């Protein structure tokens, strides 16, 4: 089962390396990983998507939490968190297909950001599932290049927060 883990870390040299090393050493796989600054200066957020059993997830959370630079580990529970991802997609687009492509993209909230003779680059921000659908719709047109940032997320203020925080254990 897939899980999204949000890790707040001190912005110190090697903080990301320590987390990725821990995953490699303990034999856990990372599906996607996104890193960026947060509202607090000196604090970064690392969002990890992992595919593992519940038992392994607990082990992952505990092992991450032991790292000295890690401030907080939270699992983003589906339904209680908003999760977004950015996709850039370069798709073959002869002149006669352009209108159709642009319309399809627009229907899903995508936007053409560069137009060439033979290809268009679209950007789309959405849930990972929306990005998946867009990708599938674009595929028949001939995807030349595709890149996704990996998901980021935060808990929804609109639902009662039950996402587990390891630091609360004991």
């Amino acid at each position, binding site marked *: 089962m897939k899980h999204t883990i949000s890790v707040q870390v001190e912005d110190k040299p*090697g903080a990301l390396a320590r987390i990725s*090393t*821990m995953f490699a050493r303990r034999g856990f796989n990372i599906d996607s990983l996104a890193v960026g600054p947060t509202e607090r200066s000196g604090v970064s957020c690392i969002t990890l998507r992992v595919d593992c059993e519940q038992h392994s997830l*607990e*082990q992952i959370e505990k*092992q991450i939490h032991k*790292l000295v630079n890690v401030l907080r580990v939270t699992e983003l529970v589906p339904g209680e968190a908003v999760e977004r991802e950015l996709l850039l997609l370069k798709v073959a687009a002869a002149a006669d297909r352009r209108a159709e492509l642009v319309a399809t993209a627009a229907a899903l909230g995508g936007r053409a950001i560069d137009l060439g003779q033979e290809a268009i680059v679209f950007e789309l921000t959405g849930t990972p599932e929306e990005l998946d659908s867009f990708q599938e719709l674009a595929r028949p047109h001939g995807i030349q290049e595709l890149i996704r940032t990996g998901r980021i997320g935060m808990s929804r203020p609109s639902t009662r927060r039950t996402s587990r925080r390891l*630091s609360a*254990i004991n």
Partner: protein
Amino acid sequence: MTESTRMTGADAVLRSLEAEGVDVMFGLPGGAILPLYDAIARGTTVRHVLARHEQGAGHMAEGYARASGRPGVALATSGPGATNLVTPIADAWMDSTPLVCITGQVRSTLIGTDAFQECDITGITMPIVKHSWLVQDVKEIPAVLKAAFHIATTGRSGPVLVDIPRDIQEAELEFSYPDEVDLPGWRPPSKVHPLQIREAARVVALAEKPVLYVGGGTLNGDACEELLHLAEVGRLPVITTLMAKGAFPESHELHFGWPGMHGPKWSNLAMNTCDVLVAIGARFDDRVTGKLAAFAPGATVVHLDIDPAEIGKLRTADVPVVGPLKKALTELASEIEQHRADGVPAPEAWLRKIVEWRGEFPLRYDRSDELKPQTVIEKLQALTAGDDTIFTTGVGQHQMWAMQYIVSERPRTFITSGGLGTMGYGIPAAIGAKAARPEATVVCVDGDGCFQMTQQELATAVLENLPIVVVVVNNGYLGMVQQWQDMFFAERRSQVHLTHQVPDYAMLAQAYGALGLTVESEDELGPALEEALACGRTAVVDCRVAQSEQCFPMIPAGAAALDMVEYGESVEAK
């Protein structure tokens, strides 16, 4: 905060070590750490013990830490000096030994250029340290060292590494040592949840067949007195792992041996047929459990540990208790005492049963004309009983016989490499232990294979006046490997024969300025050991023992604990 003084980074390192109360450090100089060694030459209250190999320095620091309970400090230069520390760091990681390693690094401007003796030691050691620092500004030195000692010794103890480029050792700062650490992400558990303790106490007090499965965390958590109290108020049988040997007095009526691969049958019977298994600072290592799925089947597991990540890592804990063991065991004992006072009976029938098993399945071996390795250890035990003696070991058959036949009565008197199984650990660890406890007699029970991995440190023992007694259980083989080849590879012995004669250990000892004795028969054994123990200087006793003696009982790797092979049984019979 100390008053601020201007000094170099190298001096700041020494002032920091002094402020931490370090009395001994172990190391070997080289290019990138020259400024620090120059500062040592200019003066420090910290004694420096010069090792002959950085691995030796690292194991000495480990031996020091395990004998004293204080963090060990090891110094090395960049590149190969630092990589030679990797084995001790990995060893300290596996056994949760507090260790502060300080390495020199090439100049900041050369980092990343593949400079002479450059290596990314913080990168190499990342999976085997609690934390590490590459110091990038001389002003960081006091805070980094403060944090290094704090992290090494708090929570689950373990190794840390501080890598300091040469130019930063030379640069100047206004030195003042901080009183506090600034580590917002480092919050090891300091409390124990009272509800968990209450539940644990209820389960343990009501158990008909409880066992305390005690691991090295009990020593690291300084909880041995609390353990003794808990066992006594609850009348609970205690089984100590190799890493916990000495955490509970072994002549005590409630001590019932050591679990796992070469543990006595009675210990494994108790562990595997108990109804409540209380894991205390133990981690369900495969050498303890054998086949995990068949380990202590049906037992309710109460797991107490300072490290939440150990809870449920291998075996689900029915009652998890996270927190410092000293506190946890105190509170558990007081709750159990209450249950006993309320009339919940102690497990007397169960205790009698384990005593019965001990009588039925004793440790045994056959005497013959050849000197038997077990006899060597038994004699050593007889000659040191009641004395202030610290034992260290290498890794292999001799280590397992030492576990079986040495009677450890006090904490921190049996020092061994458990998790990593580092051959060659014994001699340098003994030197470190001697530096920590000069008043104790320190005996390294070594194998001939192990001896040859770190024998050069005999020079350190002799010249630094840290006398140790090395008893080489010399069977002329990499004995444990030989045993596995004989048992599981149809007796095809492959690259395991070292010979009894080369080197001549007694002559080698003499070459190092130590006493060297050779023992070839049981008659010679007692006098030689007595002479070595009494001589007051470093001694090596080469005990040439039977070449093919195997260590039993043995749980074959991956087998269920109860499918152990006993002395005189063949593995095929199982």
